[in-house]
């Protein structure tokens, strides 16, 4: 099954959040999901320390020399591999991209995120050329406003689409539940069903957003 790589040399754009949401949703659908935490900040390992959803396996502390064999060993029929990368420009990132069936570049709708995130997009295209095969890639805008689409976001989407870049709809809205997943572990469904978990946000809306995002990613994996 496919290898999905979260890549952006910028930190704090939502790579780990995307990885957790996709892992949870695909596991809920019945897939055997392996998540590779390649980020020295170990966000996913922290999330997993509170409990992982059924069907999700986490592997952490994967370095530059282990990334290719680890992805290969985790891949197989009935399995989805999700790779969460560090927010720096490193060889670990370029090697992981070379193994991807889909590279997702999360980006907040800001000029800085777009500029740094475009480095990852450029790298994907150069790797395609070097390897002589296409590597599907797409941008997802993150931490967007739930109420209105800002002018900056509209302009950024136009620019990306104008440059021939696939932009995943829907964007991931700034939701307290997304960030609190890392405090509670598990997934949004468990969060919604457990009255002890205080999110201070609308978990149901977050879940709808996450499911629509996972659906959009699934469409790109077919």
């Amino acid at each position, binding site marked *: *099954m*496919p*290898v999905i790589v979260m890549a952006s*040399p910028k930190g704090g754009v939502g790579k780990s959040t995307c990885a957790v949401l996709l892992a949870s*949703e*695909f596991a809920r*659908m*019945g*897939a055997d999901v392996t998540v590779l935490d390649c980020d020295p900040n170990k966000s996913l390992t922290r999330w997993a320390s509170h409990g992982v959803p059924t069907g999700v396996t986490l592997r952490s502390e994967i*370095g*530059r*020399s282990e990334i*290719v064999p680890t992805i*290969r060993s985790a*891949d*197989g*029929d*009935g*399995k*989805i591999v999700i790779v969460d990368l560090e927010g*720096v*420009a*490193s*060889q*670990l*990132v*370029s*090697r992981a*991209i*070379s*193994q991807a*069936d889909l590279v997702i570049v999360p980006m907040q709708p800001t000029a800085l995120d777009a500029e740094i995130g475009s*480095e990852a997009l*450029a*790298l994907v295209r*150069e*790797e395609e*050329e*070097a*390897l002589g095969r296409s590597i599907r890639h797409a941008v997802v805008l993150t931490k967007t406003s739930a109420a209105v689409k800002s002018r900056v976001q509209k302009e950024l989407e136009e620019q990306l689409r104008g440059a021939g870049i696939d932009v995943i709809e829907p964007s991931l809205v700034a939701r307290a539940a997304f960030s609190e997943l890392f405090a509670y572990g598990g997934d949004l469904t468990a969060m919604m069903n457990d009255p002890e978990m205080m999110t201070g946000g609308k978990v149901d809306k977050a879940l709808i957003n996450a*499911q629509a995002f*996972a*659906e959009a990613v*699934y469409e790109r*994996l*077919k």
Partner: protein
Amino acid sequence: MSGSNRLAGLKARPKDTTVEEVRRVDEVGEARGFLDRTPRKKPGRKPSPRTYQLHPKVFPEVGQAIAAEAEDRGLTQGQLIEEMWEIYSSARR
């Protein structure tokens, strides 16, 4: 999104990445600033576990002989004294 039958349609797509291809990927990445950022080991020698100090005053010729013997054998004076102590301890047993 529901039903695992949809996911069953997604098959493994192994990629034949050879050593040569990995090298090319590294080159492409390096040209764009995606460098090897594996943490390096701390430079310099490891601290010695020999932390106890002796300050014996001996006759100059004895001190010079100990220093010369240690140097000849490629040891520190501390290592030589440890060896001497070992021999002394064994002899006493």
